[in-house]
């Protein structure tokens, strides 16, 4: 059974049909990448899945349960979590407190401090633990938000452009982290424009275009697809980090 499934999902903003009859199914344990041109509707699809937007029509199922009408927090509690495209952190709180707020209901109070410490190390934010999160650099904010999302130990992790603003090195490290989480059984759905990252982690790729599923397959199949190259990748897409 699919862990996440959308059925004939539609979203309109005024005259704009942004999500157009999307059927998408995620198998448990897979790393699935969602790519597509700017404005294709990727972030919108995320927001629909998370309940930030309500669909104009269609259904969303999570773990077999129809969650279409659920409030966002209810969906999170059933085992999703998310890193947004624009970093969403608690700017006026310390990095440590950011993590504490994320983790306090998922760990025993006795273990909380140690767990936070481990995560801080993992995120390479230990030296910055007591700084205000709002004062981190852009990339550091991305890391912090990924850390918060991961700390919920979700079944399904949604990542919207997790590596935007990261150096190739860090992008790679993020990829490795995704792979590790996946190895522990987490399902991941990631939106990315960085094909190196997609190539590194994706087991399956869906291309969204004009709100519709445009193509689907393995990374190799997608990269080889000339139609995808035409709308999205361009000619010399793949030389650098292949």
């Amino acid at each position, binding site marked *: 059974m699919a862990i996440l499934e959308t059925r004939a999902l539609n979203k309109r903003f005024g005259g704009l049909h942004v999500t157009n009859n999307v059927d998408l199914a995620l198998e448990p344990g897979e790393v699935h990448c969602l790519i597509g*041109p700017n*404005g294709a509707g990727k*972030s919108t699809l995320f927001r629909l899945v998370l309940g930030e937007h309500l669909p104009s029509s269609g259904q969303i199922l999570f773990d077999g349960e129809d969650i279409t009408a659920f409030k966002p927090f209810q969906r999170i509690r059933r085992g999703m979590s998310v890193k947004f495209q624009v970093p969403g952190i608690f700017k006026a709180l310390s990095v440590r407190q950011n993590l504490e707020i994320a983790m306090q209901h998922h760990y025993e109070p006795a273990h909380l401090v140690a767990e936070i410490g481990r995560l801080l190390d993992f995120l390479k934010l230990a030296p910055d633990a007591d700084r205000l999160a709002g004062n981190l*650099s852009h990339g550091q904010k991305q890391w912090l938000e990924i850390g918060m999302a991961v700390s919920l130990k979700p079944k399904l992790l949604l990542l919207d*452009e997790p590596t935007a603003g990261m*150096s*190739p090195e860090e992008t790679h490290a993020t990829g490795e982290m995704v792979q590790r989480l996946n190895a522990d059984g987490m399902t991941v759905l990631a939106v990315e424009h960085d094909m190196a990252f997609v190539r590194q982690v994706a087991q399956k790729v869906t291309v969204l275009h004009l709100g519709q599923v445009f193509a689907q397959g393995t990374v190799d199949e997608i990269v080889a697809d000339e139609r995808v190259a035409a709308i999205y990748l*361009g000619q010399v897409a793949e030389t650098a980090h292949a």
Partner: protein
Amino acid sequence: MRKEVLLSTLGLRAGYGGKPVLQGLDIEVRESEIVAVIGRNGVGKSTLMKSLIGLIPATQGSIVYQGKAVERLAAHRRARLGLGYVPQGRDVFPRLTVGENIAVGGMRAGGVSEADRERVLSYFPILRERWNQRAGTMSGGQQQQLAIGRVLVANPSLILLDEPSEGIQPNIVQDIARIMVELNRATGTTIVLVEQNIDMIRAMAQRCYVLDKGRIVAELERDALADGEAMRRHLAV
């Protein structure tokens, strides 16, 4: 023959409320050059850009633009001298329409001419399509295109680009690189580029500073840029 220096800093120091980030930076950007600045996350690349445009004050050192010390000038004055700035994270005006965002971009030049607007819209056709959409409801990549277009309409003589490829689909990244290079060739517009995307750096930059912990730790000339491995090493310092 070397062109004249358009922008230079000497011993530039800047930071946030008493916390120093830039630790005495000397850079030189010559007329009609495309210079890249690279470095890991948090080393101070964006801080450099912000202090060049004047969004944070220089605590020490000087910034000379067109032979004139500008480090004490307010941001809007520097903009009026011809500096354009595309920030990291886009910062479009969310409740203004696309068209109004473009109009604000042209403010320093006293208005947007028909020709400039058409030129920018031809670079980014989505902006024409969404002329009356509120910028805050555009997708991330669309906003990034708007942020770039908004600066280009005013024909700045120096553009500060902070990670312009962020969030942009691969083929448009290539387009942007191409547009910038063409612009540079055609009008002599000078560009300072902060990027993590090696392809883009290589496609655009003629020279490159490597930044670490608020200091310049290396300067790479054109040929060094060709060496992908070396570049990657520097980005991972």
